[in-house]
């Protein structure tokens, strides 16, 4: 009787878990392992796969395009991360004040977040267009001759960074705002009693207690940063002259335009390992600067 009951419980558990477990196995774990296997082969989908050991990895790490794309990603992160964090923090603090119309601002800041990257990229391609773009028109009003942003070897990446900050700002702000609202008023009262001024309160109370949220935003932004793709594909397609090419774009081209499945898989594993290492380093470093309230 007990055995039967246990069996029926197992059936229930399996039944409930089946849809998500099947998804986990079929669309995550098995493809992941297959991709590891493919990365050790030379395979164009038409002919038989050939085992080549670590050749793809060796080739990828010496491949100029791959290295350029990694360098581009680092440039992107170096520009994107500090800007989006600083602006996100500013707007979170402002939206946390009891101002009139906060609801309106919150909606406004969120509109770019809900829009697809493709739509956003197309709008900005127009705004940043050399002749008919609004950005250069506004610049011309103050006497500045703007560059042809997305076709300019130097300006294409800064433009992509700026548009990415513009789109993600709402997301970062909302996360930090939730973090701010979690900070108990007791801390501020205690600080006031101790005679702390506004700036001191921000520096000694707000910022330390906000570090868990900052940490989260940092981790997510870095992971997303390494996977930079949608906006680049639509806005510049990696150009001009590879100045905005990214690793995911390389993977996409190698796998689905050149059908170099093994090489692309190796690149995707390199990407995964980079993300993994960066995330682990952040986890380790967080003990030094993240303050947990509870």
């Amino acid at each position, binding site marked *: 009787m007990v055995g039967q009951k246990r069996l029926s419980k197992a059936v229930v558990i399996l039944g409930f878990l089946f849809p998500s477990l099947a998804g986990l196995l079929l669309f995550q774990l098995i493809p992941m392992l297959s991709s590891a296997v493919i990365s050790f082969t030379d395979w164009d989908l038409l002919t038989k796969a050939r085992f080549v050991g670590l050749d793809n990895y060796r080739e990828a790490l010496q491949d100029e395009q791959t290295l350029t794309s990694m360098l581009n990603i680092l440039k992107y992160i170096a520009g994107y991360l500090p800007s989006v964090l600083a602006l996100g923090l500013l707007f979170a603090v402002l939206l946390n004040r009891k101002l009139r119309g906060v609801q309106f601002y919150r909606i406004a800041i969120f509109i770019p977040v809900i829009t697809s990257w493709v739509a956003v990229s197309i709008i900005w391609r127009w705004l940043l267009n050399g002749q008919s773009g*609004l950005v250069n028109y506004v610049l011309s009003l103050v006497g500045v001759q703007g560059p042809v942003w997305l076709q300019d070897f130097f300006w294409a990446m800064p433009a992509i960074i700026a548009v990415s900050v513009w789109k993600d700002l709402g997301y970062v702000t909302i996360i930090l705002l939730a973090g701010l609202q979690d900070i108990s008023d007791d801390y501020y009262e205690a600080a006031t009693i101790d005679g702390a001024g506004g700036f001191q309160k921000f520096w000694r109370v707000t910022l330390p207690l906000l570090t868990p*949220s900052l940490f989260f935003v940092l981790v997510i932004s870095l992971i997303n940063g390494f996977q930079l793709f949608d906006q680049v594909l639509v806005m510049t397609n990696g150009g001009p002259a590879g100045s905005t090419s990214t690793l995911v774009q390389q993977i996409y081209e190698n796998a689905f335009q050149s059908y170099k499945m093994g090489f692309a898989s190796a690149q995707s594993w390199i990407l995964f390992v980079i993300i993994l290492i960066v995330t682990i380093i952040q986890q380790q470093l967080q003990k030094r600067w993240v303050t947990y309230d509870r």
Partner: protein
Amino acid sequence: MTDKFAVFKNLLSHLILILAAIVLVFPFIWMLSGSFKDSLEVVRMPPNLIPETFLFSNYVEITKYFPIYRFLGNSVFVAIVTTLAQMAACAMGAFVFAKIQFRGRETLFGLYLITMMIPMQVTLTPLFIVFQKLNLINTYPGLILPGIFSAYGTFLLRQHMMTIPDPLIEAARMDGASYARVFAQIIIPLSKPALATLSIFAFMASWNNFLWPLIATSDKELMTLPIGLSKLTGRWATEWNILMAGNVISFVPIFIVFLFASRYFIKGMTMSGVKG
């Protein structure tokens, strides 16, 4: 702190926020305005915000080259089915992880969470190969299936279901209710807010999804809006009025959903912060 100073600070805050709101929202107003202009007015300098005459022809002309309303239909269909299926799969999984004890449960759940770290690009190539072998490329199941599993969704619902008191479930079990009944009549009704949050989040993710549908469709009949729009830019690189009409068509549905459910959008976003 004097009152005068507080007034000044409030003014400054409003000023910064208004400026930010303009920078963030104006491109969308510009998009809307551009979609009603003709091909000359749209590139004319100096630019004008209000079109001289509101032309609706761009919204018709766009269909000559691209079946944009077909894309719209595909997007709506794929997003709705993906959302419903994802909610069902996540809710069922979350119920087990929150309320039914068994050996190895936490380990298994850990495995779910780990997948949140796997970049889509790693699973992309094998998924494409398998879907091609199964003739699922350029089909609706091919577009929908990979979007059904969501570790984030399972996590979000589990966190919520854990707050449902155990005695409630135990009492129902004592009365002879099966797990299926407990799930349908206790767990689901009590999880409505979390389900709403997930549904909005899943809908948005599917609506804006780019990389997988880009690979899973080459047939125009099956493309979703982001893919169709990205192909459109290739052909009509500078026909901004046509492109903006396409953009408006892809923007309006998600914007309406957002206006009616902004609360859930924001909740879904901030909940994603919990996992850190």
